[in-house]
């Protein structure tokens, strides 16, 4: 290679971070530095330095100084993942006058030191990663950031306590919120509970004022009995399509008087709100304090829809609000930010067949018990066996049903210990029965939780540490006759026990919504293998996602109690308000574009864009990308079979140069 072409190579600076000992423990940082300076000198590297913490202000100043004094034209920082500090080092470049997109991060922590133990091998790999980044950065082009305005409205999906809290925070700050809920009323799981731990205040008493406030807030538009069906756009500019399911009740005319519910002649088992313990009418509001107050007709069960006759509700409605001709309706809204607070499903206790739920009548689930203990519930708050009248004399409460179990869910559902303690207290308070708690570990870490545990201990509840093997009605002796027998290894006493009880309560865990994966696809957020939405950072950014403008809150991100859900709802709202107040958003200038001459209009890319940025020109038979909508995700770039689509920041030249660098024989050189 001639001297001339060598000198035309841009000057590259390489900075290798020790990350305390995170990197230097497994990678010989000094060796990588020396190698980079010597071997990659031919590639244009003019300086290579290492430093204890590159991300510190001193580390950044080192880079800034070199850019100014040595006239660096490209920078490679070999440190952590770009997720963590790409912005940091781009900022350092920018401050010293170098286009931030001429700085690359080479991940030698997440991709090298954290995943290897052999120092020699890790050091070689670190060199290859650095070589890849150097070859790539030489191909980088300077790019300019793009600024777009933010739409001030917000969509909150899910009307449980987390969603309600988020909606109220934003609405109270003076901005419009659309609150979408797929059930007929907001309130979520909390509306089903009787008492809340550890303070034992009544769930309805603390929840319904919030529901009412959300339902009547001038800045909140409530869309219940509705579901989001399509999301397009990007942070600041989402276009969302919402399906409003037919209520068969004209909400403009309905006063919520309840006469239709009263006159409806047909009852069905209420599997949702009453957890199968009670009945509801076919035209119904889930519960008395429902928000909004308008009822819904359950069309599949309605006699009119089945047989064409009845119409009792229509006849008696004083305002002619019943409308059997309603069809589902789609509305499209524009929002700048989205908060997902879609909640959780309960574990299906039938899956643990050895506990007998569904087979043994007096085995109840925790949600059934919640309804039973609720004064407004199907038993009027009386704790009774399945026959509806007999009070139990002994009750066994089994923890961790479906949780902390390799056969079902590995994770701890976080609330089951406390709800079980609450149940023990309520059973003793209302029936005086003897209560056994069967637990693996007692987990009471939050404020006033352990004090509540002490209280329940003092009240005389009996605790058995051990995982229950089975619940059976096969009696072995007279004492067990007619009872449910809980077979358990008492690990503190060190023996097997058989404890006869009248009632068993299974403290069932939380599971991601059955359709969480579809929801994650719809909104473009990540979903763990369990199905919980993934936060941008588990500690430092728990309510953001990798998709800008989409926040997550409450149990949709993992099991949590009411205070944590409320805190997350408020935190997500703070994030949204922060964005709204900035009025505009800075977008990365990473965009795809189509070379029309190479595009043959095969239309493979047309259906792929998650942001609907690709349009097809029928007349010229070519596709085109709208740069205002493109988010630079790269889906179409990868899919284009003709190689007609390229993405800034990820050109073939950049990617192949990086691969070449990675495949460089790091031992041959020097």
């Amino acid at each position: 290679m001639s001297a001339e072409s060598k000198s035309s190579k841009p000057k590259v600076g390489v900075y290798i971070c020790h990350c305390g000992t995170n990197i230097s423990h497994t990678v010989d940082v000094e060796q990588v530095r020396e190698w980079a300076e010597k071997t990659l000198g031919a590639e244009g590297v003019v300086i290579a330095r290492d430093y204890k913490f590159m991300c510190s202000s001193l580390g950044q100043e080192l880079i800034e100084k070199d850019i100014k004094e040595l006239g660096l034209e490209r920078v490679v920082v070999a440190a952590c993942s770009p997720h963590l500090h790409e912005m940091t080092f781009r900022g350092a470049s920018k401050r010293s006058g170098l286009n931030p997109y001429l700085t690359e991060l080479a991940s030698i922590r997440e991709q090298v030191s954290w995943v290897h133990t052999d120092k020699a091998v890790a050091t070689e790999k670190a060199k290859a990663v650095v070589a890849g980044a150097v070859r790539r950065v030489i191909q980088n082009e300077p790019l300019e950031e793009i600024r777009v305005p933010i739409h001030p409205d917000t969509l909150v999906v899910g009307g449980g306590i987390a969603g309600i809290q988020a909606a109220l925070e934003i609405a109270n700050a003076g901005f419009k919120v659309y609150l979408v809920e797929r059930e007929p009323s907001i309130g979520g799981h909390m509306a089903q509970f009787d008492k809340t731990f550890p303070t034992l205040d009544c769930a309805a008493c603390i929840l319904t004022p919030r529901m009412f406030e959300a339902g009547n807030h001038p800045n909140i538009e409530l869309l219940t009995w509705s579901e989001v069906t399509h999301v397009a756009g990007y942070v600041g500019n989402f276009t969302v399509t919402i399906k409003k399911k037919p209520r068969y009740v004209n909400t403009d005319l309905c006063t919520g008087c309840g006469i239709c519910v009263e006159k409806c002649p047909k009852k069905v088992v209420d599997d949702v709100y009453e957890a199968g313990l009670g009945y509801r009418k076919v035209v119904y509001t889930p519960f008395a304090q429902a928000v909004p107050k308008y009822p819904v007709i359950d069309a599949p069960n309605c006699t009119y829809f089945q047989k064409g006759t009845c119409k009792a509700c229509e006849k008696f409605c004083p305002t002619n609000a019943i409308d059997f001709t309603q069809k589902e309706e789609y509305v499209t809204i524009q929002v700048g930010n989205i908060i997902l607070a879609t909640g959780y499903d309960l574990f299906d206790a039938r899956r643990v067949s050895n506990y007998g739920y569904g087979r043994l009548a007096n085995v109840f689930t925790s949600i059934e018990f919640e309804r039973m203990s609720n004064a407004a519930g199907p038993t009027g708050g009386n704790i009774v066996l399945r026959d509806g009248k007999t009070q139990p004399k002994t009750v066994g409460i089994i923890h961790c049903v479906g949780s902390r179990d390799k056969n079902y869910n590995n994770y701890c559902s976080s609330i089951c210990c406390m709800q079980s303690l609450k149940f023990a207290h309520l059973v003793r308070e209302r029936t005086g029965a003897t209560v056994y708690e069967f637990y693996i570990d007692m987990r009471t870490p939050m404020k006033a939780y352990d004090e509540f545990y002490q209280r329940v201990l003092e009240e005389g509840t009996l605790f058995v540490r051990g995982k229950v093997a089975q619940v059976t009605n096969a009696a072995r002796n007279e004492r067990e006759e007619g009872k449910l027998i809980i077979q358990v290894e008492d690990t503190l006493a060190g023996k097997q026990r058989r404890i006869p009880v009248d009632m068993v309560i299974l403290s069932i865990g939380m599971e991601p919504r059955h359709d969480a994966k579809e929801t994650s696809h719809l909104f473009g957020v990540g979903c763990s293998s369990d199905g919980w939405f993934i936060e941008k950072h588990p500690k430092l950014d728990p309510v953001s996602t990798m998709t800008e403008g989409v926040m997550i809150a409450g149990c949709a991100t993992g099991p949590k109690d009411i205070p944590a859900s409320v805190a997350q709802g408020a935190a997500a709202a703070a994030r949204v308000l922060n964005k709204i107040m900035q009025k505009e958003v800075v977008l990365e200038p990473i965009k795809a574009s189509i070379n029309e001459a190479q595009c043959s209009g095969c239309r493979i890319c047309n259906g792929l864009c998650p942001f609907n940025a690709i349009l097809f020109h029928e007349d010229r038979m070519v596709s085109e990308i709208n740069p205002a909508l493109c988010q630079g995700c790269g889906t179409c770039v990868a899919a284009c079979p003709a190689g007609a689509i390229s993405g800034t920041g990820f050109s073939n030249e950049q990617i192949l140069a990086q691969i070449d660098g990675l495949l460089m024989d790091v031992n041959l050189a020097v």
Partner: protein
Amino acid sequence: MSEKPKFAMYWSGSCGGCEIAVLNIGEKILEVDARFEVAFWPVAVDAKVKDVEALPDGDILLTLWNGSIRNEENEHMAHLLRRKSKLLVAFGSCATEGCIPGLANLAPLGEIFETVYHTISTDNPQGIHPQPVTQVPEGEITIPALKDRVYTLSQVVDVDYYMPGCPPESHQIAAVLDLVFQVLEGKAQLPPKGSVIGAGGSTVCDECPRARNVKTIKAFRRIQEVAPADPALCLLEQGIPCNGPATRSGCDARCPRAGAQCIGCYGPAEGVIDYGARLMTAFASVIDATEPEEIERILDGIPDPAGQFYRFNLADSLFKAGAPAFKHNGH
């Protein structure tokens, strides 16, 4: 010596279809004879390698090379003709991208010999296994040894132009010859070195008359399983794995027009670096399923992925050969 510029054509590792395609240009072949002195063209005229060796370097104006570099003789001839030619054209799919012979790169050499000489379908009672060097009473005789894998022409020598196709379409050959004639008359300029000639700049879809919609594929099917295929609708949309979207235009979409899917003989479109990888991501992108098992089932509808995606381009792909070939060929 004639004043006419010299022309050569050579056939290495290939089927010979390219030679037929040249003859298929009809009367224009006479113009080739009129304008050029045919210095070397083993299929058409009698000339010896030593005649070529005797020529001054760069004496042949135009050499059309068809065939892959499979053995040492191919390689030797490639170097020789490169030295003797002003313009060396990789002619046809074998020379440009390895083509069908390139599929041998999926297996190591030993396995190829084993299959050809010693499997049940081979009648080889004496157990003959060819050797590059053999001792006979008269002395030592040699045959060219196979190279570790199949190479494209440009992987061995510097190439001026690439002319794709298996074989190149006769009208494209005629057009290229016309261009050469015009250049000789000073009426036209040669395209930049390294260009693809005798083909289009876009893909087969560009020349395909079939209607196209936004694609979603629920099942891949072989063409005989779709009876009858809609003659006016994009084949890929009907689940028939048509390679047209990634294949260079220039053939006038012959196969899709005739009701068969494009198998990719015109090679990668301009700007495509790895033909098979491009097609795989393209096909995968339009699969209409979300469950992994369902996606797996749909992909199983492509019975021969190597043949589907790399039938012509394996030797020129980023990987150049399958892993077993690399592992056992001493790499």
